[in-house]
């Protein structure tokens, strides 16, 4: 299998690569490119890590002022 993918081609396919949307041959070509190209691998890792880090923000709790809590209680009581 000839691998004629350039860095730019890999960048253009990055999202489909991470979403597993590519056919197996193209996926393999990108694997090979990343394995042989440290700058692209570095970029891939940083892009993927940002996506993974955003997942860690899931279900974060924030402080809410007591007054807001009281307003919510009043509002819901009025609606019931």
């Amino acid at each position, binding site marked *: 299998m000839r691998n004629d993918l350039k860095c730019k081609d890999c960048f253009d396919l990055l*999202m489909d690569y991470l979403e597993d949307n590519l056919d197996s041959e193209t996926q393999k070509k990108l694997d090979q490119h990343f394995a042989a190209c440290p700058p*692209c691998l570095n970029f891939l890792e940083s892009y993927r890590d940002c996506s993974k*880090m*955003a997942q860690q*923000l899931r*279900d974060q709790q*924030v402080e809410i002022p007591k007054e807001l809590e009281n307003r919510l*209680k009043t509002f819901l009581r009025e609606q019931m």
Partner: protein
Amino acid sequence: MKTKELGQQQIIQGLKDADTEVIDEFIQQFSRPLFGVILNYTKNPPDAEEILQDTLLRVIRKIDTFRQESDIWPWMKRIAINNSIMWLRKRRSSRGREIQLEEYAPTFSEDGHLHGSLFRWSVDPEDVILNAELASQLYEAIQSLPFEYRVPLVLRDTEGYPIKQIASLLGLKEATAKTRIHRGRLAVRKKLADYLEGRG
């Protein structure tokens, strides 16, 4: 969370009976996490408050439709997310700034090779749990994105929604949803890379 936490069944029954004590406890238990979810979609606290109020009311009004054998939190969160998106789509009159690819993408030579030296990225994604400053930088980077990019990115990366569902929720073609997620990620990556490079 308060020490006097009620169980799911007590909450459901209390909401059905319009028991004011249970409603107060329900607000204490769930308004903070729901507010956190809503703030991912709108940056404006007064808007978030209005959406939260409406979300809590919808939860109470729909409680009869909830399947009791499942966990109530994902169900409530889905209502909060759908409500945030509906609310924002209704009230937004103008489009935000477009993210141009060249602002955040790496540069390539004419023959398609990656240009220049990218600084060495060395972050463990788990660090964001332990490192409050990194978490705050990430949160700010996401929050600074225009609405059109922030919402699909949060739905995909934070909540794990499939692209098809994101496109449908936002009334976009799948290709557009993908482009926006990609550009949003590039912008977040660049902002975090600038922060990490400046720190190192």
